[in-house]
């Protein structure tokens, strides 16, 4: 057993937050064109889909599960949106329908995981392909781009001269809801307990399965919302929208110090992780760092995110150990 009490691990989520601040400061002062409103709004706008998905993903990972089908669900919701729009339905009807589809996708994942007791990693790798495939059947090779401009402007525009995209405001509301639910309500407590020891949580009267089911449903809903936002933000609904986004989301969440084994992590850390990657990529692009090198940087950051806290702790322990060794003599 690890010496838990010996040295409290340096809190990685705080460290990521600090790193984000440092990176922002450096970028503002050293990177040409980083600080102006247009660029910042680009940065935020392009990072928003990942940030939106990171909210439920963090909760899922804390509860010991994962959903890799989020990007496909987003793609499906976008595809349905495109198909229905082409069919002449009004956008005010389409959006709720898309959200409902997200709920259904989440429900399917949730039922497979909770009722059949299947590992979520396996299930959602399967549904990842299935949902994407359905999206392909629904929309085929079409790319729908002619959504009403008021909606497009909302998804892509920003508040007057500021750097804040309109869509950032609803995101802040969702973030607040998520933070409070995870960190200040009995539900959040239950999720942490579930992730750390599901059996013990069940014995403590926590409705583990129900919580997880709802969590998957919420994830599906958020994924659908992200899909709608994506289609409007990029003014393009295609079946392959947001392909591969799940890996970015998982990477950002893990970078933010959320433990994949469940039971540990904070939303603050996860969101800091999301924006750390987003800011880093934006700054590097402005500095003309090639896409390939950016990938390497992302990878190194990920490795460091898990290695650094352990190395730091080992150093701390070693220092304490030297102190102890001074007192006694080794045989």
């Amino acid at each position, binding site marked *: 057993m690890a010496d838990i009490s010996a040295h409290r691990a340096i809190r990685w989520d705080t460290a990521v937050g600090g790193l984000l601040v440092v990176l922002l400061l450096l970028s503002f002062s050293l990177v040409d*064109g980083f600080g102006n409103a247009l660029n910042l709004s680009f940065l935020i706008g392009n990072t928003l889909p990942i940030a939106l998905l990171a909210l439920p993903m963090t909760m899922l990972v804390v509860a010991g599960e994962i959903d890799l089908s989020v990007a496909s669900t987003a793609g499906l919701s976008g595809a349905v949106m495109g198909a229905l729009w082409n069919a002449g339905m009004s956008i*005010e009807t389409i959006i709720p329908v898309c959200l409902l589809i997200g709920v259904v996708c989440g429900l399917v994942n949730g039922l497979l995981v909770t009722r059949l007791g299947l590992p979520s990693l396996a299930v959602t790798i399967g549904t990842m392909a299935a949902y994407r495939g359905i999206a392909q059947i629904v929309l085929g*090779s079409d790319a*729908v781009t002619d959504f*009403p401009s*008021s909606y497009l402007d909302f998804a892509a525009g920003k508040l007057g001269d500021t750097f804040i995209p309109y869509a950032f405001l609803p995101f802040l509301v969702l973030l607040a809801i998520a933070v409070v639910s995870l960190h200040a309500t009995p539900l959040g407590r239950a999720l942490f307990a579930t992730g750390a020891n599901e059996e013990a949580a069940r014995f403590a009267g926590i409705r583990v399965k129900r919580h997880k089911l709802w969590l998957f449903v919420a994830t599906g809903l958020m994924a659908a919302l992200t899909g709608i936002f994506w289609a409007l933000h990029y003014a393009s609904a295609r079946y392959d929208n947001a392909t591969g986004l799940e890996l970015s989301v998982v990477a950002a969440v893990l970078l933010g110090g959320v433990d994949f084994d469940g039971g540990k992590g904070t939303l603050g850390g996860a969101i800091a992780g999301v924006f750390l990657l987003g800011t880093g990529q934006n700054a590097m*692009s*402005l500095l003309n760092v090639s896409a*390939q090198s950016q990938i390497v940087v992302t990878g190194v950051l990920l490795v460091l995110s898990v290695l650094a806290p352990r190395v730091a702790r080992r150093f701390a322990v070693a220092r304490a150990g030297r102190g102890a060794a001074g007192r006694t003599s080794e045989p």
Partner: protein
Amino acid sequence: GTTKKSVDESAGGGADNSASEADPKAPLKKGLTVAFLPKQVNNPYFTVADKGGEKALGGLGSKYKETGPNNATDTSGQVSYVNTLTQQQVDAMAVSAQDPGALCTALKQAMRNGVKVVTFDSDTNTECRDVFVSQASAEALGRSQVRLIGKQLGYKGDIAILSAAQTATNQNTWITYMKDELKKPKYKNMKLVKTAYGNDDAQMSFQQTQGLLQEHPDLAGVICPTTVGIKAAAQYLSGSKYRGKVKLTGLGTPNDMRQYVKNGTVEAFELWDPAKLGALSAHTAVALASGRITGKKGETFTAGDLGSFTIGDDSVVSLGDPTVFDAKNIGRYKF
């Protein structure tokens, strides 16, 4: 509520984006920065095209730069590169769009910020760029591939198409023209039995080819209008009992296909010269940035040793007819 119909009605006539007049005599500016934004960096085809652009820009005394996503389906990545280039205030960008709609907002923003936008290879919606430099008219490409396979088959037998992604705009346009061409009486003994999609992925294209041949054992020929697909299909055919028996043609680069032409898997295929496509894009971009053209139909400009070009419908400039490669001439091309 807001429906497609109501939006279409309110949109009215197409807006013309250029207010200013073209001045064909305006001096060609030097020291401009033109950025190439391919669908994917590190993609050999785009690298050849971009290199062509670089060479042309060098001749024009302007600066070349290349940037782009690492993945041909990372549309959001490409959007953020458009944003970055806008941010860096380049004078013009030459974009090969991953998606006709997704780049629009960003490209319009770029144009509002004074950046001239040329699309090449893959177009966006027409209002989101100044000029599209087409590798050859879609019609010519589509029809000529059918002609090629027809000749190889003696105008007889079942054929199939192995395309890239189902969403690939170029391929889809070409396929439409292929089907149209096939309606001509000349091809009455040929039948298109299936269109398959290999997603520009080697393995997938491989298996799709296998599937085509299993499903249609009498298949006589395959048209493959994508460089990745034709390569995979050729590799499969050359290692199978179908080598030489099933004809394969389509779009490919001479380097990729040399081996298969040599060993008899492929008789002839075609492609435009991507380096010329890049060079024409560069010339177009500089002409736009210098004010020689604005993108209106009928405007004419010279593009160095490529000759003179006229802007056609929808602000499209066409490179010209594709080159057909076969055992006789392939040795002369190195790209």
